């Protein structure tokens, strides 16, 4: 079975390490904040100028001056700090953020990512995504493995305009956890009940299949 959104978020959160500063993109990455493993303390960075993002506010805590990068009302965690957009991107570009998680339309086995534009169809802009993929060393892309028509999104070469070049090393899809090394995808884990054959069939770029590909585990 393909992973649900919640399971994707849960699997992402398994990558969180104690003491990590983390930037979570809009959508599934944001959901990962609900599954921070026990005993692990992380600090969430919101690129509009907040380090130490807390949960959504209660009705009486809503403050229009306190939002996240998805423009949702939020709260601040204990030990939070506030700063300008220039300072925020100094953190990001300076490589101070330990982990970045974001969505994409396509990735390819050269580590390229396309996530911000579908020419003629969707032209909303890249927001902070180009800065994040250029500035971070440790990035996880979350996406569906294939379109609903069965077209692979793990390609030999991205077809859409790129968000970043050669910057992606790890992709978590609803079917598999895949690393990118030396111009190839390496299958690391598969979703429970999903066969290696199915993953291979839906991966357009070159895929290396190790002898053992464990199923993902969830608590």
């Amino acid at each position: 079975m393909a992973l649900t959104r919640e399971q994707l978020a849960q699997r992402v959160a398994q990558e969180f390490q104690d003491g990590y500063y983390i930037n979570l993109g809009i959508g599934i990455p944001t959901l990962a904040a609900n599954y921070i493993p026990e005993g692990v303390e992380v600090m969430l960075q919101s690129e509009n100028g907040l380090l130490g993002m807390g949960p959504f506010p209660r009705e009486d805590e809503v403050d229009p001056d306190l939002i996240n990068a998805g423009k949702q009302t939020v709260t601040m965690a204990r030990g939070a700090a506030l700063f300008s957009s220039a300072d925020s991107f100094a953190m990001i570009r300076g490589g101070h953020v330990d982990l970045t998680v974001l969505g994409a339309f396509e990735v390819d086995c050269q580590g390229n990512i396309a996530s911000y534009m579908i020419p003629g169809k969707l032209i909303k802009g890249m927001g902070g995504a180009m800065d994040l993929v250029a500035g971070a060393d440790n990035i996880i892309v979350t996406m569906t493995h294939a379109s609903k028509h069965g077209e692979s999104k793990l390609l030999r070469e991205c077809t859409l305009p790129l968000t970043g070049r050669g910057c992606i090393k790890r992709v978590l899809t609803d079917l598999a956890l895949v690393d990118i090394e030396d111009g190839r995808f390496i299958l690391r884990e598969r979703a429970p009940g999903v066969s290696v054959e199915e993953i291979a069939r839906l991966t357009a770029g070159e895929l290396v299949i190790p002898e053992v590909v464990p199923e993902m585990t969830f608590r």
Partner: protein
Amino acid sequence: MSGFDKVVGSYEEAMAGLEDNMTVIAGGFGLCGIPENLIKEIRRRGTRGLTMVSNNCGTDKYGLGILLVDKQIRKMVASYVGENALFEAQMMSGELEVELTPQGTLAEKMRAGGAGIPAFYTATGYGTPVGEGKEVREFNGRHYILEEAIQGDFSIAKAWKADRFGNLVFRKTARNFNPMAVTAGRIAVVEVEEIVEVGALDPDEIHLPGIYVNRLIQGTFEKNIEQRTVRSA
């Protein structure tokens, strides 16, 4: 107005001198920390052919989005322009030119513009449509593109508090692009929720010194929320 006192008496006075085809840099992120009354004043003046530089272009009803109604914006420099049907329509028809700029690059372009730095190298956008036609240079084995600073004829910004000298204090994430926007405008206009007497602010708590501010006005704010998200109990 005398000496270092930056306070002006009306919004009309605050935006005096704004002419057609000027470049205006605006603070704000989404609808958070936007200079909403200064934007309304631009709407009232009917200034046209503007190049607006801001992270977003508001929504259909609020923020910079209201300048689209009478097609006052000729060109928009922004990182994200979703959530606005009018914007999309004018962009698709070619009436509105759009220069999509990565968010961190946009912040740095404003910062550089205010700090007298004409251009800077960044890895952001290398090998993407953003990098097309821009100078590439390699430092320590990595590729960087040359991005030019932005300066405006005007900048408009919103802060929380100010003293009459224009020393500014921002509040929470309403700070965002506002400090850099202020520095990058030839005429920097700031509206605030409260103006206090000089000396009432602790010099250590001032986020942006008044040297960057030309005109200051106190206003009342709607503070609309784009995505009101709450948890139960």
